[in-house]
């Protein structure tokens, strides 16, 4: 019988297989950041171990980094210690590090792909659950805990039990104005936050094949919000074109050998998945969340659901709690929800295409009075690219704040946070209670919905904007 993409990549990385034991997998790329690595380096030090493969390891700073005044000392002493700890560990153990202020600094899941370090058929790990992002290249990529970070540093391997596989087939074409973010939010609402638990998801079908690499990263990024450790998309010409010429992409004969291998990384026609979900792309529309987990979402055209409509008692209770926390009423149209803050950025939607999409809608328009909009590029390079295209000017003329790269308000470990009771439309990945700041309320949206919401002051899609909103001549 044939094998799925995930099974092929898995099999190619088995270092050791023994009856009754998890497989020992080789790890091709280990990404590090300041939050989940200090205790791992400490463990190495205590046991007198070193980093086995410095040439497969790279670190950057993202979770704690400020997005303003990056040339000044970091104000929060605890954040500063954590960043200094990473710098000390990188120097002591010899790990390549891109610190704050470096041109290659940024959110770890934006940095890896843009350097060309993430390639098809690789195993990629990082002490961060959104490592699933790299699956967009046909890599098997998953988040790990700090004990596993230490394990990979010491051995470049991980003992892992083979996951099951689930196909998410998206047939047809996404309607105009419907993005990868809307699609993944709809998938999570459909299968639930635990639906992918124990599985590697493979996104396939016509709608997926038509997506750009950046849109594919948005999809795979949020696999973890459906409970799946990894999500994958088979590599194709779109993938190869994205990689060609990147700093760490193979060249010459090596490129040819790599592409020949990459082309084998497709699920065989006679392979069987353990589960399959089919989605009709044509039925989708802009999608937003109303609750406090990423599965609590609905089309923007819908209303806040009535908890009483849930048959399952624990879901009903979760919906009641969510409405209470979010300060929403059952039956209230989602479009009527007013926001205080709009955040564009994160490993989900902080790449150049995301910034272009938001800027296109903001061009000549203004952020609504009383709304604060933060635009945070996913990496320093994305920021530079945006500046070279004049996007920063568009954002600033619209009244948005243009910031430096980092995780920023996605999780509020730096000063970019919501105040208690404040409500955001956010292009990030988690709407958990307090995620963006204590008492903060988060609605997950696409960059396009974020931009339209910023202009109108309430949850809105680009279709809600009219030419009348264009108040000033275009900035560029």
């Amino acid at each position, binding site marked *: 019988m044939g094998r799925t993409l995930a099974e092929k990549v898995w099999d190619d990385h088995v270092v050791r297989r023994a009856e009754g034991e998890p497989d020992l997998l080789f790890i091709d790329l280990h990404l590090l950041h300041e939050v989940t690595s200090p205790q791992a380096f400490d463990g190495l030090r205590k046991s007198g171990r070193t980093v086995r493969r410095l040439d497969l390891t*790279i670190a950057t700073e993202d979770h704690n980094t400020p997005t303003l005044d990056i040339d000044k000392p970091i104000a929060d002493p*605890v954040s500063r*210690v954590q960043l200094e700890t990473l710098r000390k560990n990188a120097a002591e153990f010899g790990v390549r590090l891109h610190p704050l202020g470096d041109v290659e600094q940024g959110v770890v899941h934006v940095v890896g792909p843009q350097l060309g*370090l993430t390639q098809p058929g690789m195993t990629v790990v990082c002490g961060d659950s959104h490592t699933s992002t790299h699956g967009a290249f046909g890599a098997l990529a998953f988040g790990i805990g*700090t004990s596993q970070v230490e394990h990979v540093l010491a*051995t470049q391997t991980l003992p892992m039990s083979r996951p099951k596989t689930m196909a998410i087939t998206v047939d047809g074409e996404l309607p105009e104005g419907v993005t990868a973010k809307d699609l993944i939010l709809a998938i999570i609402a459909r299968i639930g936050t635990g639906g992918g638990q124990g599985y590697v998801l493979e996104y396939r079908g016509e709608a997926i094949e038509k997506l750009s690499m950046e849109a594919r990263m948005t999809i795979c990024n949020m696999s973890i919000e459906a409970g799946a450790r990894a999500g994958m998309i088979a590599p194709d010409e779109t993938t190869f074109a994205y990689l060609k010429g990147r700093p760490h992409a193979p060249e010459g004969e090596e490129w040819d050998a790599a592409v020949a291998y990459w082309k084998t990384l497709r699920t065989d026609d006679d392979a069987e998945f353990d589960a399959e979900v089919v989605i009709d792309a044509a039925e989708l529309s802009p999608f937003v969340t109303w609750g406090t987990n990423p599965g609590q979402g609905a089309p923007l055209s819908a209303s806040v659901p009535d908890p009483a409509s849930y048959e399952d008692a*624990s879901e009903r209770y979760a919906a009641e709690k969510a409405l209470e926390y979010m300060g929403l009423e059952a039956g209230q149209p989602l479009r009527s929800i007013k926001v205080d803050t709009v955040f564009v950025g994160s490993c989900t939607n902080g790449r150049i295409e995301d910034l272009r999409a938001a800027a296109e809608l903001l061009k000549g328009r203004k952020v609504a009075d009383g709304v604060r909009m933060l635009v945070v590029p996913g990496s320093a390079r994305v920021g530079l690219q945006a500046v070279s295209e004049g996007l920063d000017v568009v954002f600033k003329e619209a009244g948005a704040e243009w910031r430096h790269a980092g995780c920023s308000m996605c999780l509020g470990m730096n000063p970019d946070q919501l105040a208690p009771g404040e409500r955001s439309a956010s292009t990030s990945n988690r709407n958990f209670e307090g995620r963006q700041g204590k008492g903060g309320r988060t609605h997950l949206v696409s960059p396009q919905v974020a931009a339209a919401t910023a202009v109108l002051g309430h949850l809105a899609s680009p279709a809600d904007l009219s030419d009348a909103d264009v108040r000033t001549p275009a900035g560029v």
Partner: protein
Amino acid sequence: MEAFTTHTGRAVPLRRSNVDTDQIIPAHWLKKVTRDGFEDGLFEAWRKDPSFVLNQPERQGATVLVAGPDFGTGSSREHAVWALQNYGFKAVISSRFADIFRGNSLKNGLLTVVLEQKIVDALWELTEKDPQAEITVDLESREVRAEGITAAFELDENSRWRLLNGLDDISITLQNEPDIAAYEAKRPSFKPRTLPV
């Protein structure tokens, strides 16, 4: 890691589903660079509410958390496991755990036990009615016992052996170092390296 054989203790019934790791330990606690001192951050937002179950005097000293489905979703932060352990929990029972959280817990000797929801319901009822009721989590016989309840649970033999003996994963893996070296020797040369180019 500390070995886990069997544990008996009072319980905290947590009737919530989808308890994500941001609830277990909020992000601002993640700035610490040690593995201890996270106990005050455990369920920090909910603990501000005096009626929250963890704040009840009769729950002080409880060591078994009985949680709703999909416990530990979201972020991979191992700090969530450390916070539960720092607070004093030895075992967590739920009908479904998020994968990364489960892996992290088993690597730290916090036993996560999967039981059917109807057994979880029975444990909730028992421990809500009688806060002094004790639950035994027996890894040797793979069984959870409480008054009127006996339920077998599954855990793969390899994880069980590591927990029972408190074995360090890295030492076990390094016993197979020649296999790693052999694999490395045959990796294709087109695979990328992180060294500056």
